[in-house]
Structures are given as C-alpha cells and as structure tokens.
C-alpha cells in the first residue's frame, strides 16, 4: 500500500520535473525569430510553424552536415513531443483546456525544431565557407 503510494507520487513528480525541464528548453528558443529560409521550408510565411512540422524539421536538421550537439538539444524535446501527442488523443469536447494547452506546447516544440534547423543550416554554411576559403 505504502509502496504503491510512493510509486504514484514519484511518477507524478517525475512527469512534472520532466515537463518543466523540457519547457525550459522551449522557453530559451521561444524568443528566437526564425529566418525566412526555415519558414519557407516549413511552408509558412506568417512566423508560426504548424505543430505537425516538428518531426520533418528534426529530420532535416539531422541531414545537415557537421555537428553542434543537436542530439542533446532535441532528444528530451522529442520525448516531450511524443508525450504531448499521447495526451492529445484526449477528445476536445471533454477536455477542451487540455487539448488547447497540448496544441500550444506542440507548436512551441515545432518552433524549437525550427530554431535548431536554423542553427544547423548556419553552422553548415559557415563550415562550407571556411572550407572554400581554405581551398582557394
């Protein structure tokens, strides 16, 4: 009985800590404006990337050459995005507030992925420019 209570409390705390950790990652990228290049890739010009673009943007950033520790950046947020997708299964008519919150968080995840892709593209361009200047 006590073991079951400790298990439930610990799992609840684990979920809250993990969600908050991911939200600190998202908060640090929220103020970053995306370049038109990335907005074009995501198929939008309004400055907001659709929530469903998260996976495609992460895959694209993985295709960029070079390394800037994107794995560490994205891994936790990717798990968070999957958790949100799981929570997003809840019917909108029964849990309207939850669904609205989940949609907002998924959009933040997509923006975060856009920032990572932007950073990767800039890094790749810089690397190519350095190689070109070195070969000339």
């Amino acid at each position: 009985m006590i073991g079951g209570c400790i298990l439930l409390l610990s799992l609840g705390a684990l979920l809250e800590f993990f969600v908050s950790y991911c939200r600190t990652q998202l908060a640090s990228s929220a103020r970053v404006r995306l370049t038109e290049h990335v907005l074009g890739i995501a198929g939008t010009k309004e400055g907001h990337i659709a929530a469903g673009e998260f996976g495609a943007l992460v895959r694209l950033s993985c295709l960029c050459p070079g390394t800037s520790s994107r794995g560490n950046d994205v891994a936790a947020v990717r798990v968070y995005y999957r958790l949100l997708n799981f929570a997003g299964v809840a019917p909108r008519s029964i849990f309207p507030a939850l669904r609205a919150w989940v949609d907002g968080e998924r959009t933040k995840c997509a923006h975060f992925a856009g920032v990572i892709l932007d950073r990767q593209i800039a890094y790749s361009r810089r690397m190519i420019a350095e190689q070109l200047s070195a070969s000339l």
Partner: protein
Amino acid sequence: MHGPLDYFLWFGSAVLQAAAVVCSLRAKCFFKFFFLNFYLVAACLATALRYLIFVHYGLASTQYFYNYYYSDLLLTICLYLALSGLFVHVFKEMGASKHIRLGAVLVLIATAGVSFLIVRHAQGDLTDANNLHGAKFVYELTQNLYFVGAVLTYLLWFAVLKLHQMHTRVVQIILALGVYFSAFAASYAFAGISPYSWLWRGVCYVAALWLPIAWGYAFLKVPAEAKLMTAQIAPGHS
C-alpha cells in the same frame, strides 16, 4: 550474469560522469557547483572500484555485495549534499545558508533514524551478529534518501517558481536532479512491488545516464548569465 548491454550502460554512465566534470571545467564553473562535481567524481571512482572488485571476486561475492550497497549509500549521501548545495545557491541572497546546512543534516539524521526503525521492526534486533541486517539498513536508507531527495527537490522547485527569475543553468540542474531522484524513487517503489521485473533496473540505468548528460549540457551549453522568467515554465502557464 552481465550481458554486453549491461557493460555498455555500466561504463557509459562512468564516461558520461567524467565528461560532465570536463564540461564544468571548460565552462569554468567547477567550484561554483562543487558538490555536484564532487558527486560526479565520486560516482566515477565508485564505478572503477566496483569493476575492480567484480574482476577480482566476481558478481556473486560477498565483497561485491557489500561494496555495491555501501558505495551506493555514500553516493546517495553525496547527491543529497549536492541538493543541499543547490538550496544554498537558490537562497544565498537571503543569507540562510547556515540554517539550510543544519536542516539538511537534521533531515539526513531523521531519515537514518526512520530507516533504522523500519528495518528493526521488520527484522528484529539490529545488534545481532548477522551483518545482513546492516546491509538491509543501508538498502532501506538509500531507498528512503531517494524519496526524501525527490520531495526536497520538489520543495526547491516550488521555491524557484515563487522567485521572479532565476539562472537558466540552475533551473536546468535542479529539474534534471528532480527527474533523477523521482525516477529512482519510483524504481525502488516498483522493485518493492514487483522484485523480479526488469523494468525497475532499466529505469535505474536510464536515470544514471540522464543525470550526467543533462548536467553536462547545462554546464556547457547554457550561458552562465542567462536568466529565465520562472512564470514561463510554471505548470499553469501556456
């Protein structure tokens, strides 16, 4: 018997702990987060010691058994000290560091006392010559310290949320520690309910990898001066 995956995870966690210390040295914050780094170094050394004893005496030996549980307790106490160091870090502007240290020692003594009573109640007199009682006390105390650690990290997190803004690095370190403590507390509780399940051991391995990765990331990638509005990450904020 250990498989290749066990060895990989065993040494992987030690390598990551060493890497996290290197990250803090590179970010020039080793002494700022001294107790955290002390724990990482101690965990690395404990892994090396366990491996030496494992090679010389084997996994089923009494030496390995005692070394594993006693070193685990010492590491948990180190982590508990690291947590109290984070409390001091958050509350240093209030000048409450002396009270926090005293409180941390009292909570540690109280947890040890409760663990002693639990084991004595379950097993009879602890002063028996049977050393297994001592090992059971060590196991009980480690388990309870993880739970107390999770509760204290939750209180610290609650206090951080009450502040207007906080350094992003400190926030990430606290939250990573919270994930670690609560994952271990949950795995210990699950082990009590279902001792033969592989799930609780897997959670321990993943949590052991998680902490040095998250701390190393916070040391190296999060700028020292970066601050975060705590309202942005509060549970109710959208």
